[in-house]
C-alpha cells in the first residue's frame, strides 16, 4: 500500500498555528500525527523573571479570549501560597467574569466551527453576538479582550452601576438567539449529516486518553471541576452540567451550546445573590509569596486548567507549570482523525475545540 503524506499547517490553513502530519491512503486518513510547538513562547520560563503582578498580562496571552479563566487558576494558586481569603463580593465578581468569558470563548468556538464546516452564517452570528457579552465585560473591567481583571486578593475594581440590567438584557436576548442557533446550525440536517458519527470518542477512550472539558462531557462523562471541586462560590450556585452520550463532533457542538445556557444561568444568579462589601484585599507594596509549592486548577472554557507554582519566598515565582486543557486534548487528535476522509478533517478537528496557542504556551 502506498500512502501519501501531507502536512496540514502550521501556517493556518485550517488547523490553527499547528501542524498535523496526515498520512493518506487515497482519500482516507491512515494516520494523523499532531506536531505542536509552532507558537511556543515559553510562558513558564518568562514567568520566573517577572513578579506576581507582572505575570498577569503574560498569562492571559495563551488564551486571549478566555483570559479570566486562565487567570482564575493563577490567582487561586498565588492566593493559596499567600493564604489569602478573598472577600465574598470579589469572588462573585470573579465568577461573573469567568462565566462571561466562557460564553465569549464558546461563541468563538461556534463561529470557527461554523466557518470550517462551510456555514458562513454561523460564523457571522456568534462573532456578532460575542459583542453582547464583551460589552458587559468591558463595563466591568474596562477592556474588551484581555481583561487583566483578576488579581491575587480579589478583583481590580468594583462593578459600575447598571451592569446587572445590562447583563440581564444580554442574557434575555441571547437565550432567544440560542433557539435560532439550534435551528440554523445544531439541528440543521445538513450539519448533522456532516458531523454525526464523525470523530467518535467513546466513554472508555475518553477516560483512557485523559481528555478534559466539553470533549470529555460530550463522550458521556459527567466531570466538571465547578461541581467536583467547587472553587470560589460555585457551590452556592445552581446549575447543570450538560452531558451527551454520543461522543461525536455533533455532540461537542451541542455540549458547547448547552454550556452557554448554564453559564447565563450562573451569571443571573451570581448578579442576584451578590453581597455588598469590599472586592479586594488591600495588599500594600510588593507581593511576596512565602516559600512553598501549590497546585490550583479551575474549569476553563476548554476544560481543567492547572497551575503548579513553586515559590522560594522571593518576589518572583521560582517555577511555574501550566497545564492547559488543549494540551491534554491534543492526544485525542490522532485518535479521532484516523479513518476519516481528508475533507472531514476540519470539522472533526475544530469540533475538538483545540487551541494551538493554549497548548504550546
Amino acid at each position, binding site marked *: 500500500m502506498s500512502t501519501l503524506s501531507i502536512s496540514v499547517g502550521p501556517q493556518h490553513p485550517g488547523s490553527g498555528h499547528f501542524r498535523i502530519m496526515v498520512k493518506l491512503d487515497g482519500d482516507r486518513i491512515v494516520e494523523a500525527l499532531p506536531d505542536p510547538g509552532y507558537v511556543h513562547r515559553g510562558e513558564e520560563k518568562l514567568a520566573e523573571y517577572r513578579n506576581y503582578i507582572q505575570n498577569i498580562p*503574560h498569562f492571559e496571552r495563551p488564551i486571549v479570549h478566555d483570559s479570566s479563566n486562565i487567570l482564575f487558576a493563577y490567582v487561586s494558586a498565588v492566593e493559596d501560597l499567600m493564604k489569602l481569603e478573598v472577600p465574598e463580593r470579589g469572588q462573585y465578581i470573579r465568577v461573573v467574569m469567568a462565566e462571561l468569558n466562557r460564553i465569549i470563548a464558546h461563541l468563538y468556538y461556534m463561529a470557527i466551527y461554523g466557518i470550517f464546516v462551510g456555514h458562513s452564517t454561523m460564523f457571522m452570528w456568534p462573532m456578532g453576538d460575542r459583542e453582547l457579552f464583551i*460589552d458587559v465585560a468591558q463595563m466591568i473591567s*474596562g477592556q474588551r479582550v484581555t481583561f487583566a481583571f483578576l488579581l491575587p486578593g480579589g478583583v481590580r475594581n*468594583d462593578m*459600575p452601576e447598571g451592569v446587572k440590567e445590562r447583563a440581564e438584557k444580554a442574557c*434575555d436576548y441571547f437565550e432567544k438567539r440560542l433557539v435560532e442557533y439550534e435551528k440554523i446550525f445544531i439541528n440543521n440536517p445538513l450539519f448533522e449529516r456532516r458531523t454525526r458519527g464523525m470523530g467518535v470518542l467513546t466513554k472508555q477512550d475518553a477516560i483512557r486518553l485523559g481528555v478534559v472539558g466539553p470533549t470529555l462531557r460530550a463522550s458521556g462523562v459527567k466531570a466538571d471541576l465547578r461541581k467536583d471541586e467547587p472553587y470560589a462560590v460555585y457551590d452556592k450556585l445552581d446549575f447543570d452540567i450538560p452531558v451527551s452520550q454520543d461522543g461525536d463532533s455533533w455532540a461537542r457542538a451541542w455540549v458547547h451550546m448547552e454550556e452557554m445556557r448554564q453559564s447565563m444561568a450562573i451569571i443571573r444568579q451570581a448578579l442576584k445573590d451578590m453581597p455588598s462589601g469590599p472586592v479586594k484585599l488591600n*495588599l500594600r507594596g510588593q507581593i511576596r509569596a512565602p516559600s512553598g509549592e501549590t497546585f490550583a486548577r479551575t474549569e476553563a472554557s476548554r476544560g481543567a486548567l492547572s497551575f503548579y507554582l513553586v515559590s522560594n519566598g522571593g518576589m518572583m515565582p521560582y517555577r511555574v507549570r501550566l497545564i492547559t486543557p488543549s494540551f491534554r486534548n491534543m492526544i485525542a487528535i490522532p485518535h479521532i482523525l484516523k479513518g476519516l476522509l481528508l475533507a472531514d478533517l476540519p470539522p472533526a478537528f475544530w469540533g475538538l475545540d483545540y487551541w494551538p496557542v493554549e497548548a504550546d504556551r
Partner: protein
Amino acid sequence: MSFVNRLFSAINSGTKHLFKRRFTLRYPDQKFILEGEGYQYDPKNGVGIAGYRGRHILYLERCTGCSLCFMMCKGISLAIEMINLPDKQISVNKKSNFPQIDYSKCVYCGFCVDACPFRALFETNDYEVVSYDRESLLFTPEQLAVPPKKPKGTHDLKYGSRGAYHA
C-alpha cells in the same frame, strides 16, 4: 421532525433576519458611547475605579518621577521609559523625570496606573491611538498631559423587539 421540515426551519430562521435591524456598528461613522472618565486607581483603599482602559493621562504637577510605573511596565511590555525634561520645573519632581509611553508596545493592562501612589497617571477612554508611522505612537510626557478630546460617541447597544442593534 423530518429532514425537509428541519431544513426549512433552518432556512426560515436565517431569512427572518432580512427584516430585522442590523446589529453592526458602522465604526468610523458611528461611535460607541464609553461612560465614565476612564480607569483610575485609589491608592488609599488599594482598589481601582471602573472605567475604560484607553490611552493614559499624566498629571505633570503630581508626578514625582519615582519611576514605579516604569518598573511595573519593565516586566510587562517595556512601553514606559523615564525621560528627563529639564525645562519642566515641578516642586515635587526635583530631577524632572517623567514617563514616556510607546503605544506601539503598550498592552493597556493598566498596572502602571495601579503602581502610581500619587494619582498622577490614569487611563482615559480614548481608544483611537492610531497613526501612519511608529514615531507618532511615542507619547512624550507633554503629550500625555493633554486631556484627550471627548469622544463623540452617540451609539449604544439597544435591545428592541426586532433584535439587538446599535443606535
